[in-house]
């Protein structure tokens, strides 16, 4: 990581931008080229490969992360745009060896087969359940309409998200489940 104070440059003379971004609670200050997409920043600069690249054309949602709590497609966002923002990725779901309710839901309801779409599906679901904690099946289906799955036929994904919604609504035993 470069530490000079003058704006760093690439070998081709492109000016780099220092961004400050909090990913799953950990702060990072990194120099990036403006054209670096958020998904590449996460996978290549931070080595967090849980966020997938599927279509690379804003269609499939495999790259979904939360930007300040909202689900967005990280293949269609430059890293420089998230300066000062907070990002949540699939790597941040499990806490202290305990699965997040959405992960538990996908496990219990067989919400995945190959697993390629799963990180995006789960991040979309987490963002959605934060705004709609008691969704109908139709609302769940609408919420994941920007996420494609080529394996499951969606039925078990919908059940997984419903499982998580119910689990998240359960009165907290001691400690409330962490939604983000």
């Amino acid at each position, binding site marked *: 990581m470069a530490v000079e104070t003058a704006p760093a440059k690439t070998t*081709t003379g*492109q*000016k780099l*931008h220092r961004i400050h971004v909090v990913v799953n609670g950990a702060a990072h200050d990194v120099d990036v*080229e*403006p*054209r670096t*997409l958020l998904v590449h920043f996460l996978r290549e600069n931070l080595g967090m490969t849980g966020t997938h690249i599927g279509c*690379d*054309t*804003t*269609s499939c*949602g495999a790259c*979904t992360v939360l*930007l300040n709590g*909202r*689900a*967005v*497609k990280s293949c*269609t*966002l*430059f890293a*420089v*745009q998230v300066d000062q923002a907070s990002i949540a990725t699939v790597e941040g779901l499990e806490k202290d060896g305990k699965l997040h309710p959405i992960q538990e839901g996908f496990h219990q309801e067989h919400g995945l087969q190959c697993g390629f779409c799963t990180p995006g599906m789960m991040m*979309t679901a987490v*963002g*959605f359940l934060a705004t709609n904690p008691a969704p109908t099946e139709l609302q769940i289906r*609408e*919420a994941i*309409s*920007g*996420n494609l799955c080529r394996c499951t036929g969606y039925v078990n994904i919908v059940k997984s998200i419903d499982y998580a919604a119910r689990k998240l609504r359960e009165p907290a035993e001691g400690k409330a489940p962490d939604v983000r």
Partner: protein
Amino acid sequence: MIPASFEYEVATDVAHAIQLLASSGGEAKVLAGGQSLIPLMKFRLAQPASLIDITRIAGLSGIRENGELQIGALIREADLEKNAIIRQRYPIIADTAAVVADPLVRNMATIGGNLAHADPANDHPATMLALRASVVAQGSKGERVIPIDDFFLDTFTTALRPDEILVEIRVPKPAARSGGAYLKLERKVGDFAIVGVAAVVRLDESGKIAAASIGLTNVGLTAIRARNAEEKLRGQAPDDKALAAAGAAAAAESQPVSDLRGPAEYKRDVVRVLTQRAIRKAVARAKGGN
């Protein structure tokens, strides 16, 4: 896919954005939600020398009713769709926001970008034509208000000057006994429209159509008004016969082309059907229904 290199600048306020645009010699592009621009840059169909990020400018994402409805250019589709004023008083705008792309794109995409991009497949242009909206632009020469009929010049081309940014959309307050609706046929959820129809009607005291305005999505080089259909409805009771005549007129004046979303004849027939349904829904809303 990696875009070509570009410089990135964050505009702190509107004046700063205008200054950055003016000094770029036409080589810069405004970046709002990025949901149209970034895909184009990834395909290298767009290679701007610099991007001016306007999303950090404060005060451009509000919704106010102030004699007329004022919508800040930077409001995200997801927020527009949920806004209480929009849902209660301008349901046609909520109809439209709800069918733009998918929920993830809607968390980023802005209404200003949807209009400024001037893609005939975008959904808000037809709705804004039907609502008789206007667009507020700010540039080095000051502010001007552009009637929506004068805004879309060609595919991807608007009346905005190179140093202007769109800051607000203004929509006249709904008249008594008026209502509007937007309907869209899409191949699958999240796709651009095969055809979209926006209809706004105002009824007179006897329940006849005093005025109608109709906008069409993705059946022309820009979103277009179906003026003949509007004319057919004037003074008529909103019965099946009048609606059928308006649908036929809209189909005749639409200019679809055959592409992967279907042959032109098919799209023309979709215009005919959706126009009637949109008017029917607009009339129901004008009568206080939903």
